[in-house]
């Protein structure tokens, strides 16, 4: 049972149990206080700025379990279609793969994850606090995220990603992701090491899920402010591809 569920979902039927559950339910809506005391042993302290402490472990492009549609999409996508050349931010899992720091801020009903790269801020709505369900209008580059504390870890599920030409593999040969992409991030802290495992599902393009693993350590250095991306120069490198390597003969 996850931490939030333990607080918010009554399981005991005795009168005493009902009172206890009522108190705990009320506590869930108070800042700090009873909830923090009750859950202190299970609620991980993830609030920090984190920096990469090891090379990411990601699936080799040739080993991605692509279905026929995924293979076709991979073969169709060329470098010039990568959204980053128009200053579009990266998404999970690739936002964690570049050597930039990020921060986690744990609040009562949500977790805020801010990234140095691309000035991204994600809101993870914690289950059990009455957050609204995702709407069609929630489709976006970063998707819609909900989370829970489970066995001392933070688990974040994200859906509602828009189609992303680099959503499964962001380096050549790129593999896009569809609107059915779903990610599950598990944040596990062990001392000064934060392990983040991201499972990516996309039944439109993958025959099975794939796993990306990252390692981070806390740092006292605050996040660097972002420097604006200039779309006028972001495509500079594309002119350097030789004609022979242009998939469609156009840049």
């Amino acid at each position: 049972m996850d931490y939030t569920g333990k607080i918010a979902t009554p399981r005991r039927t005795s009168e005493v149990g009902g009172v206890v559950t009522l108190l705990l339910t009320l506590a869930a809506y108070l800042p700090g206080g009873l909830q923090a005391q009750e859950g202190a042993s299970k609620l991980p302290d993830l609030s920090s700025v984190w920096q990469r402490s090891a090379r990411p472990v990601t699936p080799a492009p040739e080993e991605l379990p692509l279905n026929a549609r995924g293979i076709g999409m991979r073969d169709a996508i060329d470098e010039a279609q990568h959204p980053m050349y128009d200053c579009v931010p990266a998404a999970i899992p690739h936002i964690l793969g570049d050597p930039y720091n990020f921060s986690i801020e744990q609040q009562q009903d949500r977790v805020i994850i801010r990234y140095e790269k691309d000035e991204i801020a994600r809101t993870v709505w914690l289950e059990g606090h009455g957050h609204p369900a995702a709407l069609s209008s929630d489709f976006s580059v970063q998707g819609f995220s909900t989370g829970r504390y489970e066995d001392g870890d933070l688990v974040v599920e994200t859906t509602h990603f828009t189609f992303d030409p680099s959503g499964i593999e962001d380096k050549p040969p790129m593999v896009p992701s569809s609107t059915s992409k779903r990610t599950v991030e598990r944040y596990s802290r062990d001392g000064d090491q934060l392990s983040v495992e991201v499972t990516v599902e996309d039944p439109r393009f993958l025959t099975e899920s794939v796993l990306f693993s990252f390692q981070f350590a806390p740092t006292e250095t605050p996040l660097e402010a972002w420097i604006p991306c200039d779309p006028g120069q972001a495509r500079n490198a594309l002119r350097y591809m030789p004609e022979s390597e242009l998939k469609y003969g156009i840049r």
Partner: protein
Amino acid sequence: MKRNVSMFLAVATAAAGFQLLAASAGAHHSAAPFYDETTTVEIRGVVTRWSFVNPHPFLYVDAVDEQGETHEWIIEFAGAVRMRKIGWSPETFTPGEIVSAIGHPPKAEGQYGMFSPKIMREDGTVIPIVGSVGGAGVAPR
């Protein structure tokens, strides 16, 4: 492969034993599709523009080749936020100053660019950089 590119002298060097780690330097994009990592070139020229932006900062340098023709070289560096962490800023270069750079040229013919090269000021001072090797900079994290 040999290219005549420098303000005063063109140097093309077979890259055996001198590979710049450009592929891992960018983070935003891989260098491999764009830059010829089997060859290096050296240029010396005049800074015309310094653009400290994301996704990558760009230094524009006018260099004269052996035929006396001026070419605008566009030198690309690792992400601006990463460069700022080692002290780079919009004031790192000034238009009019002379710099030298050694790095991998573009794969496409007739283009003048470099990615994350070893870069030096007019007096030979090497400017610390993220993402380049060969004694020039700070290894990528």
